[in-house]
């Protein structure tokens, strides 16, 4: 008799839908999944953060040193490979590069010194590209008029088009360019990428990325003029 009663109509609790069909289940599921995956991501990032920061710092130091390889080499005899070797990079950076705070304390610029000789300045400049902010390091001779070298180290331009401003072919064009004469800016102009023997004031642009190429020039003049003026003002005090 008791067996028959057990097999009778379902009780109210038995009739309730399974867990994954309840109205709150999608919300609870999404919440749990989000917490688990984002938590794992946070853990993974935190555990690797020191390595990432170290890698970024070393990449930045390497970029600055690479701009002054010829100048440092001419004074010390060190080759590019020796200067940028993984083992000696931090030591060489501390030896040849001295960060200096801007007079207003807002940002820093860098001075390159070898055996007490000022080899040049390096500025961390920022500008607007086609898709977002771009940042570059530009090394100038001590006269603050001639470019030693330029390196765009952070950008969000179109891969394969605007992003080619980071390639040696584009950046090497700036080496030796005189940007100021009698303290007045000399305007550089863009010419097609396949232009033969461009003039001293011409830069071969990246094909298909005129706006990005133009942005590099704008960034160079706008930021450099500001920084130069601040340094000159500071020197006159």
């Amino acid at each position: 008799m008791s067996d028959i009663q057990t097999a009778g109509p379902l009780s109210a609790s038995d009739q309730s839908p399974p867990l994954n069909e309840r109205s709150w289940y999608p919300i609870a599921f999404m919440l749990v999944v989000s917490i688990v995956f984002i938590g794992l991501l946070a853990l993974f990032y935190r555990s690797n953060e020191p390595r990432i920061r170290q890698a970024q710092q070393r990449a930045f130091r390497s970029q600055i040193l690479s701009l002054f390889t010829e100048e440092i080499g001419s004074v010390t005899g060190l080759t590019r490979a020796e200067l940028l070797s993984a083992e000696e990079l931090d030591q060489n950076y501390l030896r040849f590069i001295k960060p200096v705070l801007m007079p207003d304390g807002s940002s820093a610029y860098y001075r390159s010194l070898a055996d007490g000789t000022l080899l040049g300045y390096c500025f961390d400049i920022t500008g607007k590209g086609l898709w977002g902010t771009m940042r570059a390091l530009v090394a100038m001779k001590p006269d603050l008029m001639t470019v030693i070298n330029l390196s765009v180290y952070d950008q969000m331009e179109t891969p394969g088009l605007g992003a080619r401003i980071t390639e040696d072919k584009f950046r090497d064009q700036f080496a030796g360019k005189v940007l100021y004469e009698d303290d007045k800016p000399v305007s550089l102009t863009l010419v097609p990428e396949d232009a033969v023997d461009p003039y001293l004031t011409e830069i071969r642009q990246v094909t298909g990325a005129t706006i990005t190429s133009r942005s590099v020039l704008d960034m160079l003049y706008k930021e450099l003029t500001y920084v130069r003026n601040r340094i000159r003002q500071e020197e006159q005090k």
Partner: protein
Amino acid sequence: MTTKQIFIDSAFRENSIWKQILGICSTLAVTNLMLNSLIMGIGVIFSLALTNLTISLLRNYIPRSVRMMTQTLIIAFYVIIVDIYLKAYLPDISMQLGPYVGLIITNCILMGRAEAFAVKNKPWDSVIDGIGAGFGYTLVLLAIALIREIMGFGSIFGFTVLGDRWTKWSIMVMAPSAFLILAVFIWIINNNFYKGKA
């Protein structure tokens, strides 16, 4: 279906690009250089395989109403893991990749395979499907990039092959050329292998 059949189906018969017309944005964007295409392809294969595996493992618990949100979350999770790993352990490669890794999140193929396969198949089969779909995608990218890089830069994987006598086609470096080549590519494949089979 056997593992081999799953792979062949997802890589060739049901190829994401020429059959399903998925992942077109990235195909147009990155195929001007072969190296970019290869890197993008490897990233997609890795992310696809792991995303498919995870979604397949969770398939019986994911509510239908939030399945796409869950899939997007899982895709983003793996892509960001790859990004963090590269930044920490392979910073030089990470620098070269630039925004490519992040672009994988927006690739329709990942969501497409999750919806079409991983939500209703076993984990191992889903991994194979992911690898197959990524492989098929990479092949198409490399085929288009081969034409564009040779004609646009005169090189293959950055190595000059055509010399200075070759007049570089600027249009090949820009996105419109990818539209043209991709269209011709899809037309040739469909005309030769799928004609009359629809």
